[in-house]
């Protein structure tokens, strides 16, 4: 064993020292859920297939992290010592979030690892982009080519021409690092097709862009998303929701248009008309105000009520009672009757909801993620109105209440963090969307078609915009044009619709094949997780040191972090661009950092409490993380707004007229990820100097000057914005309905799970949910082909008429409708082969020529595929519908539902991209472009990945 792998320190071996109580350790009498950690390096298990014959085999149990949904649950991989194969993955009992438990997608990781159709070698395009020609190339070929192009862009000051488009990152810090080091404004997340709506709602209250409900201790759990079956954070949250329900008698209320698995556990289920949720929530707020069941002390101390009075009621006295009276009056119009009219939910159910919320006191855990906030025009206000209930009831940051995510999340940065750049990428942060929560990623094809810019190098990283984003044909049209996108590099473990349109397809590892750190707000505490290549770790422990993850991964599959280090090095081989220094070892000056050294440094220097915990077990910090895969940072974290500032923090800070404590700053200052540069906290009326919130006022902003200053004073306070699919806009008699296309299944995850056979076999059809009454009116029955027509085209699905969805709404789940152009460069487990054609006028037609069917491979199960339904790729027929405020794509579609027409076949898709352009322009026209009166492109305090210096904010 080399020194690098020996993580023990001090006298004796780690076996002699105590191991901590694991948060997920449990036993049923003689049976425990996991072998004790001290045995993980030499765990003997008996072959299940040989049983009852006892065939022992020795394993190393190496923790890592699931890479399927965002929850980042702990996994424990079983690596056989004899042949270093990974035989299965279980949960990790050391993980404070997932506590040793998983959803179906956790154990299914083994399917992804063993997928016989994985991409094992780097590939380079041959022939036209998208034409299906590929040749193997070396990593060196790819690295040199990509690096030289990026170097050229950087040297030519084209800092907006290198873009990294990431699906769900599943990691914190590393992408920011290399982008900052390169000095490009190129971070492009998927967020605006996902959670941006909810984020703006939360951001405008407190700066933090996500909620962190303390479900486990809640008295009332109010869910607008299906947290018992999908991400953010499915398994960790489901555990705690059901715990609160069964052990704490918590009431669960669910708002969802369909009978979800979550709704099935609700004490009260409301199925509102899509987009009316804010009206319901405001009627509850109004009820709380009217009946005085509000937390006055909390409101007085933490809400910017003076600003509210000043802006809304300048003539009234500036006292708190006047504020409460004014607020009560302002919201009085949101009656139960009004909400019932908008939502088509009976008044009694809304009243019941209001009563339940009123009884919650400070233990109201409320959550919205995607769902209504991602579906509707103005959806961000649904989140803003939901948090309004937390604010009114004083259930913010309390035990059983709802905290901001920042209190329960810990980002561990590397050494020598590069400072902010001063570039501003108008393709990602265009002037029309100054309040957009994240990059306007899904408008990229339209911006490029508009001639707003060009890209030299475009990375898609475990991301599949052609399939996932709306208006996929616009993506295909754009990706096939090599004049606007110079180079498309797809970093992906498996083939996807997008990888088919790349220049390089570079294979990256699954959950058990890569290094990352990450941290999510799963409960009222924080943890830092460590994803690791488990075979590499096992090999290291067995004495064969691996210095490159490719040596332990299948084929030439790599991990991203090593790739980025190597790529960055080649961009700046001599260090003259100032990039290389960020990739030099902190332990070996001037030499290239290894991924081991990078994380070793992080764990030794950035993680509070880790060195001590490690030492207590006789381990180095790195050794501790290699052993447990996670470290708990904090627990029982509440009311961090009241955290007194330390002398260090206060040093040099002065209160401004609103009490905000600020350090002196200049235009060269780089604001933090969230918050304004220099702001450290707030001095409250009683003189206490505390951390407060991350808004400009460091308080909860009932009135958002930021929203008002960018031209939307009418939406500066929580309000109800009528959705683009509101009841009034839908002509039911003409066959129009609202299509809800976003609901997720507990067993699949976007396009990541397409190669997990054990998930596909559970979920493999894609029916269009429709209420029996609607089906009757439209002449449809279960199994019938249905033509669903959007503004830009149509698709053909199959109906499921039943009682589990509200009339007026049809719904089609996410995940399915996977397609491929050929059988070689494709994942066949769940996809259909298609014919794809485009007319000269720009009308695209896609038709399945082959449905999923058995195929021969090394896995006998591929010949047993019994499902035949590839699903319908509905997203292709959705025009872009960017919310003018949050910039989120408004997923819900106003559609016409009718029986299929002669010649229609299941799965057919037709789209006219000219119409798609038209709709894009219509929605663009709804914006009120920045900059604001102060000349800012966007509010400085708002979260923005890879935040530039303050001066870049100036238009």
């Amino acid at each position, binding site marked *: 064993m080399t020194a690098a792998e020996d993580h023990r320190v001090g006298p004796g071996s780690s076996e002699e020292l105590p191991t901590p109580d694991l948060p997920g350790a449990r036993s*049923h009498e003689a*049976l*425990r859920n996991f072998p004790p950690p001290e045995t993980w390096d030499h765990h003997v*298990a008996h072959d299940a297939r040989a049983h009852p014959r006892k065939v022992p085999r020795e394993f190393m149990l190496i923790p890592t992290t699931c890479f399927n949904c965002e929850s980042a649950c702990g996994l424990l991989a079983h690596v056989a010592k004899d042949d270093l194969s990974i035989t299965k993955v279980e949960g990790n009992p050391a993980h404070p979030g997932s506590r040793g438990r998983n959803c179906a997608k956790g154990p299914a990781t083994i399917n992804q690892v063993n997928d016989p159709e994985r991409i094992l070698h780097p590939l380079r395009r041959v022939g036209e982009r998208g034409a299906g020609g590929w040749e193997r190339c070396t990593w060196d070929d790819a690295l040199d080519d990509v690096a030289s192009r990026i170097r050229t862009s950087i040297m030519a000051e084209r800092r907006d021409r290198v873009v990294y488009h990431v699906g769900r990152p599943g990691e914190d810090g590393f992408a920011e690092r290399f982008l900052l080091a390169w000095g490009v404004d190129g971070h492009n997340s998927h967020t605006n097709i996902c959670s941006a709506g909810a984020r703006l709602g939360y951001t405008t209250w407190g700066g933090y862009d996500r909620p962190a409900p303390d479900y486990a201790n809640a008295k009332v759990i109010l869910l607008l998303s299906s947290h018992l079956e999908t991400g953010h954070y499915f398994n960790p949250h489901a555990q705690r929701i059901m715990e609160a329900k*069964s052990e704490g008698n918590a009431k669960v209320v669910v708002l969802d248009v369909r*009978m979800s698995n979550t709704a099935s556990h609700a004490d009260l289920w409301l199925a509102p008309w899509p987009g009316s949720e804010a009206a319901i929530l405001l009627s509850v707020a109004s009820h709380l105000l009217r009946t005085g069941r509000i937390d006055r002390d909390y409101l007085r101390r933490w809400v910017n009520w003076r600003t509210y009075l000043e802006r809304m009621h300048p003539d009234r006295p500036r006292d708190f009672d006047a504020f409460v009276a004014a607020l009560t009056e302002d919201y009085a119009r949101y009656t139960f009757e009004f909400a019932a009219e908008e939502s088509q939910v009976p008044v009694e159910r809304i009243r019941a909801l209001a009563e339940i919320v009123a009884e919650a006191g400070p233990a109201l855990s409320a959550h919205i993620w995607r769902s209504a906030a991602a579906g509707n025009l103005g959806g961000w206000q649904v989140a803003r109105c939901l948090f309004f209930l937390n604010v009114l009831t004083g259930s913010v940051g309390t035990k059983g209440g709802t905290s901001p995510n920042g209190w329960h999340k810990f980002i561990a940065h590397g050494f020598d963090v590069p400072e902010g750049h001063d570039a501003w990428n108008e393709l990602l942060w265009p002037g029309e969307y100054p309040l957009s929560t994240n990059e306007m990623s899904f408008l990229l094809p339209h911006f490029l078609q508009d001639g707003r810019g060009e890209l030299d190098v475009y990375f898609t990283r475990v991301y599949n915009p052609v399939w996932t984003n709306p208006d996929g044909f616009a993506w295909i049209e754009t990706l096939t044009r090599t004049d606007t996108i110079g180079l498309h590099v797809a970093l992906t473990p498996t083939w996807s619709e997008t990888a088919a349109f790349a220049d390089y397809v570079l294979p990256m590892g699954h959950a058990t094949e890569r290094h990352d750190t990450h941290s999510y707000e799963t409960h009222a505490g924080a943890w830092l997780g460590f994803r690791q290549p488990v075979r590499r770790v096992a090999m290291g422990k067995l004495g064969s040191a691996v210095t490159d993850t490719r040596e332990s991964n299948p084929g030439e599959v790599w991990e991203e972090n090593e790739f980025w280090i190597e790529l960055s090095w080649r961009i700046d081989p001599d260090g003259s661009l100032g990039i290389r220094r960020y990739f030099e070892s902190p332990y070996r000056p001037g030499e290239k950092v290894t991924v081991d050294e990078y994380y070793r440094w992080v764990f030794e220097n950035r993680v509070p409490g880790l060195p001590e915990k490690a030492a207590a077990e006789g381990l180095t910090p790195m050794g501790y993380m290699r052993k447990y895969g996670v470290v708990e940072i904090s627990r029982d974290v509440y009311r961090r707004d009241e955290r007194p500032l330390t002398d260090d923090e206060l040093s040099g800070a002065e209160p401004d007229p609103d009490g905000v404590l600020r350090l002196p700053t200049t235009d060269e200052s780089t604001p933090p990820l969230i918050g304004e540069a220099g702001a450290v906290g707030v001095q409250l009326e009683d003189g206490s100097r505390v951390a407060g919130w991350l808004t400009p006022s460091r308080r909860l902003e009932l009135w958002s000057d930021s929203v008002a200053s960018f031209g939307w004073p009418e939406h500066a306070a929580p309000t109800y914005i009528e959705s683009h699919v509101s009841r009034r806009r839908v002509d039911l008699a003409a066959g129009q309905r609202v299509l809800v296309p976003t609901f997720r299944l*507990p067993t699949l995850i976007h396009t990541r799970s397409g190669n997990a056979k054990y998930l596909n076999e559970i979920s493999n059809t894609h029916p269009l949910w429709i209420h029996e009454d609607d089906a009757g009116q439209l002449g449809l029955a279960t199994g019938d082909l249905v033509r669903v027509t959007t503004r830009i085209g149509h698709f053909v699905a199959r109906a499921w008429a039943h009682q589990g969805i509200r009339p007026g709404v049809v719904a089609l789940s996410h995940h399915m409708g996977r397609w491929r152009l050929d059988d070689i460069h494709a994942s066949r487990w769940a996809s259909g082969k298609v014919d794809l054609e485009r007319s000269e006028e720009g009308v695209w037609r896609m038709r399945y020529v082959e449905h999923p069917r058995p195929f021969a491979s090394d896995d006998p199960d591929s010949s047993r595929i019994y499902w035949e*339904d590839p699903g319908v790729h509905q997203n292709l027929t959705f025009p872009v519908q960017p919310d003018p405020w949050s910039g989120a794509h408004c997923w819900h579609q106003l559609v016409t539902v009718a029986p299929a027409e002669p010649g229609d076949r299941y799965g057919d898709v037709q789209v006219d991209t000219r119409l798609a352009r038209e709709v894009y322009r219509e929605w663009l026209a709804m914006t009120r472009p920045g900059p604001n009166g102060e000349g800012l492109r966007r509010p400085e305090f708002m979260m923005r990945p890879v935040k530039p210096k303050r001066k870049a904010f100036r238009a």
Partner: protein
Amino acid sequence: MRYGFAIDQRTCIGCHACTVACKTEHEVPLGQFRTWVKYVDSGTFPDSRRDFGVMRCNHCTDAPCVTICPTGALFTREDGIVDFDGSACIGCKSCLQACPYDAIYIDDDTHTAAKCNFCAHRVDDGLEPACVVVCPTHSIWVGDLEDESSGISQLLATNESTVRAPDQGTGPNVFYLGAARAVLDPLEAPVKDTYLWARPDEHRLATSADFTGSDPTAATTLNTAHPRPWGWRVITYLWTKGVGAGALFVAALAAVLDVGLGGVGDVVAPVLAAAAAAVTGGLLVWDLKRPERFYLLFTRGNHRSWLVLGGYALLGFGAAATVWFGTAVLGADAAHPWLALPVVLLSALAAGYTAFLFGQAEGRDLWQSPWLLPHLLAQAAMTGAGAMAVAVVVAGAGDDATALVARVLATAAVLHLAITAVDLGGRHESRRAEVAASTILRGRYRAAFWWGAVTPTVAAVLLAVPAWNGDHGWAVLAAGILVQPALLTYETVYVRAAQDVPLS
């Protein structure tokens, strides 16, 4: 010690983690499940509801699969776990018939029976089963049900619980808390056209109109496939051994009554019997998923299993046919009256033992009828006499012989029809049997049953009666031919309908 599970449906979120963890633990082939999650949707919007149920082996205290397993491949451990040893399994599928819970399948990789074995390999190492470990909401409890202080015992002592199909008397050791009746009783929630994100298998779809639950809105919206374990081979085996046994019975009866059948009684009957026994045995072996292991029936036979005892019965019957033939060939016909009684008994055993085997198939309530034994005997006499009638008439064996076969045929056919009427049309012990019977009488199988099984048998009776005194040989010949496909059709619907009743 008695290990069991408690599954708390009050907290189960239907996520399928247990399903997948189990599959990765045991590397279960696609399409097969040791545990799975069933969904039932019911109600009318906005009072719709969905219920989940985690299905698996019940580790029954009185496990019918262990009783029926011919080789002891399925066995109950001291700790109560119903375990299996794939290396001892011949793939006869009888355990699939015995299990009233659809818990067993034939593994596509090993071609042997498999099911939840409580992760016995883990339990032996002090670890919880994989499904228990993974469950996000800790809705699956495991422990010793005989230990009052165990967590599971405490849970069950303080909460109401139910089991699946308690009327089967198997003593299930999987207890459900807060489970909807429509989830646990498959007859309460038929499948309606589709599942919510999968397609029901054709077999399950076919049953959708066979029954309705007490709540007509309840529909099974997610489940797994459980194809009929036994098909045409077993159906045919019922016929072949019946024909053989019936033929030898007629020969023996003729010997006792001193009716001269000539070569038909001395040669045709025993040859037919022996051939039928051989074909029967061949069909049985052919139906095994591991036919090369059939010898395990004898080397490690479970003498409680009627599959084993039936094997001996068939061997004994084959021996009887051989002796009958041998004595005839050696000119010792005089011994036949003395041989008649054992021959009749062995014929009856060969024809009738299936009643005991089917009786051990606890999952098929239609087959649990007390009428099955006499019914099989009547059917054997009918088809055996039918075969003999053909031989007698073709060989021109004389009026006495014709009269005998006609009388046996007519009597047996009337008995067959009468028992059919009483058995299928009468009161049933369970709803499952009732559903199976009504599927035959009034449901999907009614055309085959009435036109293919009943009508030709009635016609055969009408043809055989005029030959009662030995006249009209052509009529009894026609009757003898008619009853053969009629019985095959009857057995087809009888064997299928019983297996069509959903158990999960």
